[in-house]
């Protein structure tokens, strides 16, 4: 083995320029591969972080407009979800549905504390909303069952609203009674500010809002968490069943897809995952093609080397070198050149990823409406590095194969005659 390496060292040293030129091609290929994969990972990680904001296995249901005539009624009818729908959701799907709740909005109310006021919208929710939307509180508590039951006038205010209403010490709002429109509400909690979204909502019990604002039994949207639906197919089957049930409540065709809208976060996450996988595969392919040009370069140069060294290989064979030993020299040389420069490229790629991480990574970008992060941790893992190393060895072997075969087939008499 040592012999083999010193042989290769001798020949590589003899051809510094050539070796470094081919090396550059390979290094560039690997550099691109790593940078692309790192950037891809950055995008994917950012997306995952966005997904983390709510529970995956949940659905949201909205009223829509019928698109089919049914039961003597024409199409084009608006469907308004109501308390019955929520009750049906809670009662008939216990096999899959864990907790169901509803949301209702009242836009544009003014919240006043002393001389300070903010305009806000009110969200009437059930206690399970905290879990489903991963709400965190900095102080106090969320809506509870008693609030719902007694239609209490309690309110959870968002952190930034609290700051505007009581700039000196927002937390002092907790427990205070404040004015919401013409009514008095007691602040029971302060909601943590979302990193990326400005919250202009204040949260109240669903039943309170429904009663105070005269909504009758109307509901804005229904949401619920579920279990036991693990594939896209199972989800679809459930949605079909659920849709039929709710549609029937409103005398709409059971298979009318527009009467109600179902937003399934689980299947959406599944599809997102699929998309991410496609991106990753695409990046690998692009990277590998870049690398391929490096391989072709190495292969070409090795072919030239073999031609230059024809006589030497002839001599080696005349004094007893087997074709296999010649093959070994060339392929090992190819692997070492590819591997060495590839590794260099990989280190530079990792460096570039670190730079990307330091400049773009986790830096929120202001879009006006909300802030978002494009890149989160745009780096490649150890697994990828091992994969790339494997690719390098493979690439070196492939690059060396043709020239090596050529060299091993050199006939000593012909090589020695060529003077």
């Amino acid at each position, binding site marked *: 083995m*040592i*012999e083999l390496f010193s042989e290769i060292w*001798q*020949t590589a040293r*003899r051809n510094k320029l050539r070796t470094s030129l081919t090396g550059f091609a390979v290094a560039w290929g690997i550099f691109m591969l790593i940078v692309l994969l790192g950037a891809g990972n950055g995008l994917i990680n950012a997306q995952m972080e966005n997904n983390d904001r709510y529970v995956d296995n949940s659905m949201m249901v909205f009223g829509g407009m019928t698109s089919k005539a049914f039961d003597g009624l024409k199409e084009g009818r608006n469907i308004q979800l109501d308390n019955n729908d929520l009750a049906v959701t809670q009662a008939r799907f216990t096999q899959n549905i864990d907790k169901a709740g509803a949301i209702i909005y009242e836009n544009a109310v003014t919240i006043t504390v002393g001389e300070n006021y903010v305009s806000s919208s009110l969200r009437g929710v059930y206690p399970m909303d905290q879990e489903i939307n991963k709400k965190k509180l900095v102080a106090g508590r969320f809506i509870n069952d008693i609030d719902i039951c007694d239609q209490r006038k309690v309110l959870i205010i968002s952190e930034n609203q609290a700051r505007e209403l009581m700039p000196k010490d927002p937390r002092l709002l907790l427990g205070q009674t404040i004015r919401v429109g013409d009514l008095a509400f007691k602040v029971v909690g302060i909601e943590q500010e979302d990193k990326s979204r400005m919250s202009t909502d204040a949260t109240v019990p669903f039943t309170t809002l429904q009663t105070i604002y005269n909504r009758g039994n109307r509901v804005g949207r229904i949401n619920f968490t579920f279990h036991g639906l693990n594939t896209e197919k199972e989800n679809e089957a459930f949605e079909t069943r659920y849709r039929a049930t709710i549609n029937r409540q409103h005398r709409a065709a059971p298979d009318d897809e527009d009467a109600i809208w179902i937003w399934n976060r689980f299947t959406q996450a599944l599809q997102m995952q699929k998309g991410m996988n496609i991106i990753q595969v695409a990046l690998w392919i692009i990277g590998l093609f870049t690398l391929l040009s490096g391989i072709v370069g190495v292969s070409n140069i090795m072919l030239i080397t073999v031609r230059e060294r024809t*006589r*030497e290989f*002839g*001599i*080696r*064979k*005349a*004094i*007893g*070198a*087997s*074709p*296999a*030993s010649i093959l070994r020299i060339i392929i090992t040389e190819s692997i070492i050149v590819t591997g060495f420069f590839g590794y260099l490229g990989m280190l530079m790629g990792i460096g570039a990823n670190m730079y990307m991480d330091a400049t773009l990574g986790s830096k929120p970008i202001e879009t006006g409406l909300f802030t978002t992060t494009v890149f989160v941790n745009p780096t490649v893992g150890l697994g990828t590095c091992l994969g790339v190393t494997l690719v390098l060895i493979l690439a070196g072997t492939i690059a060396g194969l043709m020239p090596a075969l050529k060299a091993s087939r050199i*006939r*000593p*008499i012909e090589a*020695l005659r060529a*003077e």
Partner: protein
Amino acid sequence: MIELRGIHKTYSGAQPLHVLKGIDLDIAEGELVSIMGASGSGKSTLLNILGILDDYDEGDYRLAGTLIKDLSETRAAQYRNRMIGFIFQSFNLIGFKTAVENVELPLFYHGVGRRRRHQMAMDELEKMGLTDWAEHYPNELSGGQRQRVATARALVTRPKIILADEPTGALDSKTGVEVMELLKKLNREEHITMIIVTHDPNVAAQTNRVIRIKDGVIE
């Protein structure tokens, strides 16, 4: 040691060239033989066949009792490595290796370990009087020195036969004589069978037997 029976060799090409037309030849162990003939008469062709560098079309070639016919490249390389040492007119040393590294090379393919290889190569160079030149590259050596390095390389594996294709052809007459003296001494003292192709009558005169090739057969 060497037994040739009805060897034919034709070079195919646009004009097929029938170079050897039935060569019968026996060379005993320890002989010092020269092969002579006009340029293009097929001396090198014959020597290449003897050295298993080239194959022949018809006949039988036995080397130390083994039939040498249709060998795989790997087997041919093995036999060359074990039994045959080559000395070429143009030395054929590897330019980027030092004298001692060149001499070590056949031992490397023989599977001899690093240290022992170096020791054996140095011993061989010492016999050639080249100890001081061991670490020099071929282009730093004179023609005579190079041919002596090549001879050391041919001898280092203790082959049964040495095949030399015009070993003095590229040397001035004085150095040529020195190299011939060396080969004769090796034949005498180490009892190595030696076949020397030459067109120099002075060289041929120093051998035990002269084989003349003409029109593809032995005269």
